[in-house]
């Protein structure tokens, strides 16, 4: 059986769940071979990746990779497309992932498809576009298909394999080292999960009324171990930081549960959350278009309903 190259998404030794989702998706196409760029790959890491079906973990950990973003990774992926002849390359649909994929595609003369939500055994890709209103099947027509996959789309499921680690030395061109990382700043995010990876997202919009109104949203989020999101109306008004915006001009989320509070549901917002599995809506206005997406909706004052819900969840845990 042929290899499928999977680019691991990780922060030092912290494996992002999308990596396990990519390996799970890769199993339908061939033997998942994981490429680990940079530091953090330990015996435990290799075992975890193997537990989801990785047959090999190729580790490229060098100063060239650690000190320069994107371009070195693209050179390594391109060289592996050449030497491994994988049947496909799977990458996370993150900023870094998409860009490594994009540059590797041009280097290797391979087609690229982004934001897959499903991949068939013949590498046909399912995409959910225009905020989930349209389902598209696409395929790459030239070279090795390079496919970026959206987090939370393919459920990760274990299939244990004794993965082997192999350290690879790839020489990186001077051209790929022209951008240098001078410093890395980690912004404290608190205990909440990453918005795009969270299983539950609790969002607030115009109906929240102001920055202090997000207190009840955060309390509900914490009762569910959820990420907090905000509509564009709320972030534009400065009530909640920009990076939490869900929508066409913000993040796209696809959690198991999405709770929209005081959000009317303009297309701009729906485009970022329409593929959520279960949607709960709280809004004063019974005519709000967001109710069209609701599996369960309550017409009422969010400042009454949301705290009661948080309390009830805490009680039932």
């Amino acid at each position, binding site marked *: 059986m042929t290899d499928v190259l999977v680019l691991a998404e990780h*922060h030092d030794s912290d494996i992002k769940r999308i990596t396990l989702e990519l390996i799970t998706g890769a199993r339908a196409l061939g033997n998942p071979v994981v490429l680990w760029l940079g530091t953090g790959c330990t015996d435990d890491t290799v075992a975890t990746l193997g537990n989801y079906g990785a047959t090999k973990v190729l580790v490229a950990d060098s100063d060239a990779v650690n000190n320069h973003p*994107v371009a070195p990774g693209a050179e390594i992926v391109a060289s592996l497309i050449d030497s491994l002849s994988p049947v496909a390359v799977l990458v996370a649909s*993150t*900023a870094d992932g*998409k*860009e490594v994929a*994009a*540059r590797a595609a*041009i280097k290797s*003369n*391979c*087609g*690229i498809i*982004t934001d897959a939500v499903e991949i068939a055994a013949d590498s046909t890709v399912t995409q959910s576009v*225009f905020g989930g*209103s*349209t*389902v*598209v*099947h*696409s395929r790459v*027509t*030239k*070279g090795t298909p390079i496919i970026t996959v959206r987090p939370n789309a393919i459920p990760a499921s274990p299939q244990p394999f004794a993965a082997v680690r192999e350290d690879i030395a790839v020489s990186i061109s001077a051209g790929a080292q*022209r*951008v240098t*990382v*001078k*410093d*890395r*700043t*980690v*912004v404290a995010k608190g205990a909440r999960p*990453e918005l795009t990876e969270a299983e*539950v997202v609790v969002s607030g919009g115009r109906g929240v009324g102001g920055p202090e109104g997000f207190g009840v949203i955060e309390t509900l989020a914490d009762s569910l171990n959820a990420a907090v999101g905000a509509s564009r109306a709320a972030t534009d008004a400065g009530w909640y930081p920009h990076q939490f915006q869900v929508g*066409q*001009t913000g993040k*796209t989320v696809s959690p*198991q*549960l999405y709770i929209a509070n005081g959000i009317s549901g303009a*297309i*701009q917002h729906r485009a970022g959350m329409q593929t959520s599995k279960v949607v709960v809506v*709280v809004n004063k206005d019974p005519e709000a278009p967001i*109710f069209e*997406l*609701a*599996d*369960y*909706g309550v*017409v009422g004052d969010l400042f*009454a*309903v949301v*705290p*009661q*819900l948080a*309390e*009830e*969840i805490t009680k*039932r*845990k």
Partner: protein
Amino acid sequence: MKIAVCVKQVPDTWAEKKLRDSDSRLDRESADGVLNELDEYAVEQALQLVEAAGGEVVIVTMGPERAGETLRKAISMGADAGIHIVDDNLGGSDAVATSAVLAKALSGREFDLILFGSESTDARMSVIPAMVAERLDLPQVTFAQKVDINGSELTVERVTEYGFDLLSAQLPAVVSVVEKINEPRYPSFKGIMAAKKKPVEILTVADLGLEPSVVGASGAWSEVADFAARPPKAAGVVVTDEGDGGVKIADFLTSQKII
């Protein structure tokens, strides 16, 4: 300093978008075409850099004839000139083909900086800046929330999943910016009037020295096999709060085995 800003005309962000049955391409006629919102931040950044250090800003777009309006709109914010690549052969181009066209149009013009928005609101791929950088063999510094230029030294704060990285590179370079970098200005009346007189170069595929086979649908390295509207969601339950709305949602979540 000479700065190029690549912009795209997209269907209005607030409009419903759909694919055409005939060729599986985005139906661009059914909605108003507007300047991709995220590109406004790139235009603003270019104008601020030139206001501080001197130079010129050229807006570059590829798209059908009506994309010329969008080009003028971007110029009216205060740019100096435009380049519009327009050709019937370009329809159906994917990201790979588009990046080939943009790279060709940009090369040899001695731009110090090539700016992009972080993504287009229609295709949302976020790959064009990286592809153009690869094709032009330039350093790529993308998803910038802050851009500083000191002589030929470029310093950028790149937004990451965890915070941001401070990156440095030498010009020329390709940079994309995120929406928190600035507050785009509205075109002034003077700017709108002036934009009508600013030079816009119209280029075809042949002018760029590209074979028609490397652009459009024939130059695309990916294709849409088929598509369908997502079946409408079954209507959910909507109740009016009678003092127990929170409890009712909790009951629903329990019935779904979520809590």
